[in-house]
């Protein structure tokens, strides 16, 4: 998020697009619902009539995968009516003319044809949003998990720059991140192209800095993203995977393909807390401690670094992950000598400019710090881009709408989209160990009333969902919240895995798979 959570009640208008907020980020949803009750206008755009729509001033049902068209359509109307922030555009933005030329053709009628959102509704949305003194935009994987994921994200930034909603309290582009430390894993250089704090591995100066800091020579080439590495493993090109606390055998697209890929590896080591679907394929399994069993820090969706204290002892011989890395490094000739997580944090802050001013002491004496926090005196940065973008001027991109990689056709006539439900988390390795959470929610496919009638089925009937990649049988959840011609499968459940069905077509830049759209057929099973 460019903005902080505490500030999210300060908006005049909030737009949620591609986030089932009350299911996936319930506490942020609570704050947004509260703000809506207290007068903030809420706009919800989503193929599913999500719970947040009940609190919205305007809800629009879009066809899956049409975000660029919808956002371009909003910008078309905002420019046409002169609601754009002219001063902000003149002073802080480049690329406006190209954007303006691109969105010219996205009339409400044209956008209606693509997205299914009535022209009149789009006009209402654009007016409410365009005229708002301050408006915030929230999204989650509904924006990113597309072959046009990068285009979608850039379009959200275009809209916020066009309306001058950047760098101020109550505004911002606010992606809601889905895992406790997904932000931190990125910040720490858990990515193939960057060291900590997004310092490029191909930048010679950066490489030299790290070589000096770590006292060794480093690889100058970008590494592979996981989705590409799995394809290469399938082709027999990759030889070994070391997997820590992840379950790609549930979370990856097209699981048949992923399983073949893992089975071709010469060596697979998995460091985890349970015998996951991935661990079952490993040659060596290393038992790790988990969340309340260790001290350390997480960085949340608003870039706030917070401290976790150790509450209980890990079971048996399980060890903290850092300790395992140290033991292994030392077996391979290193002389690592960390005695606690605090020492690691201190080392990390020395090579990570945005964390440089943080310490356990500061984190403990308050409620964490937002990065960037470059010096020990710096209070942290709840709102990014105030007065100036980090890179100077903000760049607007002219982005044409592109269809998803796979569209419904005669054979597979239904849109399939996937996501989360409130009671479970990710591949459910953790939540399915809770009998209570399991009793509350199990595998299902949400289908529309119309499609259920066509199939002649009611609630809880068995339904077969089939795509070009695979097929699952699960229980129907017939609901008015899903429009005709769309089906929704949560991806948490190994016995009805959504990712047997999903398309492994990737965004060309971010290499993110298109989990939010593919074509399926539904049959009574």
């Amino acid at each position: 998020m460019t903005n902080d959570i505490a500030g999210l009640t300060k908006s005049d208008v909030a737009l949620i697009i591609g986030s089932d907020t009350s299911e996936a980020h319930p506490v942020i949803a609570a704050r947004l619902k509260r703000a809506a009750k207290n007068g903030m206008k809420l706009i919800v755009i989503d193929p599913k009539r999500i719970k947040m729509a009940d609190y919205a001033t305007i809800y629009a049902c879009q066809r899956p995968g049409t975000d660029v068209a919808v956002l371009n359509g909003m910008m078309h109307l905002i420019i046409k009516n002169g609601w754009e922030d002219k001063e902000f555009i003149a002073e802080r933005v480049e690329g406006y003319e190209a954007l303006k030329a691109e969105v010219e053709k996205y009339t409400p009628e044209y956008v209606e044809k693509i997205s299914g959102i009535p022209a009149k509704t789009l006009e209402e949305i654009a007016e409410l949003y365009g005229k708002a003194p301050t408006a915030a935009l929230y999204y989650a994987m509904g924006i990113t998990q597309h072959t046009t994921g990068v285009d979608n994200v850039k379009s959200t930034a275009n809209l916020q720059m066009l309306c001058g909603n950047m760098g101020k309290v109550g505004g911002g582009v606010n992606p809601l991140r889905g895992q406790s430390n997904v932000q931190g894993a990125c910040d720490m250089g858990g990515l193939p192209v960057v060291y900590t704090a997004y310092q490029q591995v191909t930048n010679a100066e950066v490489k030299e800095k790290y070589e000096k800091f770590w006292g060794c020579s480093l690889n100058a080439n970008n590494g592979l993203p996981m989705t590409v590495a799995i394809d290469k493993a399938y082709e027999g090109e990759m030889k070994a995977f070391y997997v820590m606390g992840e379950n790609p055998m549930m979370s990856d697209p097209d699981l048949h393909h992923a399983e073949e890929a893992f089975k071709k590896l010469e060596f697979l080591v998995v460091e985890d807390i349970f015998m996951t679907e991935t661990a079952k394929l490993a040659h060596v399994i290393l038992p790790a401690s988990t969340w309340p069993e260790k001290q350390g820090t997480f960085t949340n969706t608003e870039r706030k670094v917070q401290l976790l204290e150790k509450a209980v002892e890990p079971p048996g011989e399980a060890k903290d992950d850092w300790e395992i890395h140290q033991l292994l490094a030392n077996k391979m000739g290193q002389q690592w000598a960390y005695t606690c997580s605090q020492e690691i944090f201190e080392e990390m802050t020395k090579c990570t400019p945005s964390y440089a001013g943080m310490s356990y002491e500061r984190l403990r004496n308050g409620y964490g710090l937002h990065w960037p926090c470059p010096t020990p005196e710096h209070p942290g940065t709840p709102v990014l881009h105030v007065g100036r973008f980090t890179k100077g001027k903000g760049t607007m991109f002219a982005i044409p709408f592109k269809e998803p990689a796979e569209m419904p056709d005669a054979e597979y006539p239904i849109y399939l989209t996937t996501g989360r439900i409130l009671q479970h988390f990710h591949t459910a390795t953790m939540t399915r160990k809770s009998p209570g959470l399991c009793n509350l929610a199990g595998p299902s496919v949400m289908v529309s009333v119309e499609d259920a009638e066509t199939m002649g089925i009611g609630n809880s009937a068995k339904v077969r969902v089939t795509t070009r990649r695979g097929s699952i049988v699960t229980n129907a959840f017939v609901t008015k919240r899903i429009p005709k011609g769309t089906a929704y499968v949560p991806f948490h459940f190994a016995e009805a895995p959504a990712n047997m069905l999903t398309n492994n077509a990737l965004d060309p830049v971010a290499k993110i798979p298109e989990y939010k759209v593919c074509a399926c057929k539904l049959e009574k099973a």
Partner: protein
Amino acid sequence: MLVTINGKQYEAEAGQTILQVAKKHGLYIPSLCYHQKVGVAGKCRACVVEVEGMRGLQTSCSVVVRDGMNVSTRSEKALQAQKLVVDLLLSSGKHDCLSCAQNGKCELQDAAYYLGIERPTLVFSDLEPHGDESSEFIKVDHNKCISCGRCVAACQKTVTNDVLDFGYRGANTEIVFDDGKLMGKSTCVQCGECVQICPVGALTEKKVAGQARYWETEKVKSVCPYCGVGCTMEIHVDRKLNKIVRVNGDENSPVNEGMLCVKGRFGYDFVDHSDRLTSPMIRNDDGSFRKASWDEALDLVATKLNDIKVKHGTDKIMGLASAKVTNEENYTFQKFMRTVIGTNNIDHCARL
């Protein structure tokens, strides 16, 4: 400004209520319906005090202080009224503490203790059990409910789930879920905000029954392991059993203001689950696993990774970091892959 309470002067800020000033300075006044989060309700009348120059007793939760105000929280009249209110509340239900999960944190118990009430004056022996255990995680005991309204306000104004409300009339008034459904059949999402804010034992966590009591647990600050919001929490630990007894949201956190969701509050069973991996394991030739020592397992990993490095090159090895472990551990992981293996093949499931 200065305010006199029970003959002693205290610093106060404009806009504060008598109760807020008293609390700030560590002075106890019985109060049951007020909570900082949901604000003034002025319902229970347990917090009545005498204020010089004001007619009758005043509810300290709702009266804003003035400079020079002279308040008596322990005058005979005030104490008598406080005692009557608490006595009647105790009489109106079945406030048995012996096996109550709230014992030690019950605000009605605190008030009775402060006022020296051993037993209620009126005892209705014919009160039928009136509870609702239909919900997965939360137990309702209407006989312990004092109709303070905190849970209703929290459900509607704090977490904004709009499930809880008051139903029925007069003496029959009670909290209801939706239009009077059983909690488990209602639209309740079991975030547990009502449990955390309930001053008595009317709404309690099913999982804590019979476990270590409030004063026996150590409270450890932590951050929720699930989504990326980063709700801060207080883990209540039974040290003797090395076990989590309950998890509460941190009321002072700017991130979640005490709120949690059903996973964050109740979904910690995985921690001490019998399926946890407790020793390193090595795959046998027939595909089964055998237990191994750390030394043996790590020797094997080191040898294999070294062999592959030499035979095929460093970029034939891929490391998956994790969005579920700490920053420190992601740092050591990428440092291991980059400095020991010699590759930038590091990723995690940020996209998935």
